[in-house]
């Protein structure tokens, strides 16, 4: 579709991401006095900027890029446009963990991480191993079998979540619903430091396996004959990116859409070569969530909208537009 020279794409995306982040830091219910931010003066503006806006933008960017990158990897690993860690049950596992925690009202902190996040991450881990174990037990490693196992686990968890919601009182139930909508509201940097190692380790792993992702996208037999150790590569990428998603979702809630759609959108624009695609997915996933979060702060200000609502609302139609444009040129995926 785009005939931008390859070399121009990355600098453009970096510049764009920086711009989105910068603008987002100055967007919100309170308008900030820029002069007050410089220096060490302890005023309310600098407090809002450094303790709320900056960590929030950092968290949104990291989460968005982590989710998008994981989605890209899953689509390539499973050669299926619908595969993401979300479809594979990672997010419903996390959601179940969070719901149980909110229902039981367990409150503790672990290395500065809230009990909800800890429980959500445990839930995510549980679902990853459950899906993998199920497929192993069945002895079928076909991509369709794994997808089906993932969807089945996901649906089962979803109804358990509904059950917990049903037996909760109104306050708890609202908390659960609100958590399921996702959000990146933070105060201070703890959540950022929680998500950072997941996303960065994930990014390095993916970076290491970019050539393998390309070859594996054409089929296991071809990949094997080209010299790829398919089994190990798949395992490492599967667990690596599932952990990224688990880490992100445990802090931000299941922010849908990004993991599935951002890779598709980038692929329609840049093409499927993962060596070019991965940096683009990383940057645009991050800046897309930052952008949506900025919108969530101003659309119904002074109230805030859950960011998960905006990501799907914006991204869905945009993807459909690209999809129709691309379909006409036979450039759609699959």
């Amino acid at each position, binding site marked *: 579709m785009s005939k931008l020279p390859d070399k121009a794409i990355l600098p453009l995306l970096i510049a764009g991401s920086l711009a989105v982040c910068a603008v987002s830091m100055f967007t919100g219910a309170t308008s900030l006095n820029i002069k007050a931010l410089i220096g060490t003066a302890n005023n309310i503006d600098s407090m809002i900027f450094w303790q709320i806006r900056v960590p929030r933008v950092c968290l949104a960017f990291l989460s968005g890029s982590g989710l998008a990158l994981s989605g890209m990897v899953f689509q*390539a690993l499973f*050669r299926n446009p619908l595969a993401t860690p979300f479809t594979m049950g990672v997010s419903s596992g996390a959601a179940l963990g969070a719901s149980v925690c909110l229902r039981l009202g367990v409150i503790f902190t672990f290395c500065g991480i809230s009990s909800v996040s800890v429980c959500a991450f445990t839930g995510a881990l549980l679902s990853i191993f459950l899906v993998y174990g199920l497929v192993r037990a069945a002895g079928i490693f076909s991509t369709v079998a794994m997808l089906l196992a993932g969807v089945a686990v996901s649906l089962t968890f979803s109804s358990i979540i509904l059950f917990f919601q049903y037996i909760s009182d109104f306050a708890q139930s609202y908390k659960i619903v609100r958590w399921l909508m996702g959000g990146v509201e933070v105060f201070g940097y703890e959540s950022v430091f929680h998500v950072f190692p997941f996303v960065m380790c994930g990014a390095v792993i993916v*970076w*290491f*396996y*970019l*050539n*393998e992702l*390309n*070859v594996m*996208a*054409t*089929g296991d*037999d*071809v990949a*094997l*004959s*080209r*010299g*790829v*150790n398919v089994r190990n590569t798949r395992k490492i990428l599967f667990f690596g990116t599932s952990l990224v998603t688990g880490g992100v979702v445990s802090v931000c809630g299941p922010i849908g859409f990004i993991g599935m759609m951002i890779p598709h959108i980038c*692929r329609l624009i840049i*093409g*499927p*070569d993962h060596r070019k695609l991965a940096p683009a997915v990383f940057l645009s996933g991050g800046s897309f969530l930052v952008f949506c979060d900025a919108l969530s702060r101003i659309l119904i200000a002074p109230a805030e909208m859950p960011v998960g609502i905006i990501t799907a609302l914006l991204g869905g139609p945009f993807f459909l537009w690209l999809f129709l444009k691309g379909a006409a040129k*036979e*450039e*759609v*995926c*699959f």
Partner: protein
Amino acid sequence: MNYFLEVKDFSHTIGEKTILKNMSFGINKGDFISIIGPNGAGKTTLLKCLDGILPLEKNVSIYLDGKQLTKYSRRDLSKKISYVPQAERQTFPFTVTEFIFMGRYPYISPFSQFGLKDNEVVRWAISCTGLESLANRRINSLSGGERQKVFIAAALAQETEIILLDEPTAFLDYKHQTEIKSILENLNKKSGVTMISVTHDVNSAVVNSDSVIAVKEGCIKFQGSIRDLMNVKLLREIYDTSFNLLKHPTNGGFLIVPGKEE
């Protein structure tokens, strides 16, 4: 005599089921071998075993260049043998050039870019298969025949001494069948690439191959020259149906026509 690729009393089981039984044969450098047989005979399984695509026992009795197949690392093996699957599959919309570059996978390391040598080999692979005009098209917009050529070109870019082909001309129209056959024949004759091609169609095997291995129910029923294969009784044994032989108008050999014997 030492064969380049040798299979000695090889059996292969998947789960409880024995797919290949006590197979023995040898292939010399530069041979063009066709593996024929009915559907479900185990031809593709055999091909996938030869390239280690299917998991093999450690003590496998397949030898390449005198060395057990399992003694090769994945990467080293992929520099010796490449595999062309049936090109019917769905894949991401890579461009033809991008796809052929993937054949260079065994020669590059993580984080590295393709070099001069890689570009040169890919250009050679494109010209061998006559894909110049399609180089920037996306592979999912190509016809089956064009796509088959792209898969062959990617295998060429792998620079291997042996190319395994799974039904390279099935499902293709006559023009593409002829083109693919002549591409393979050229590579075999001029570049000395050893070709092992699986086909259910005896007539298409007749055109290129030096010799034929016939597989039925996981066993080798026949191996030898095309001339010896052209025997109504033998063919009926292999395919469980009757055939008539027909003189080929130009090359002096035979073609087979399925149907009641006359």
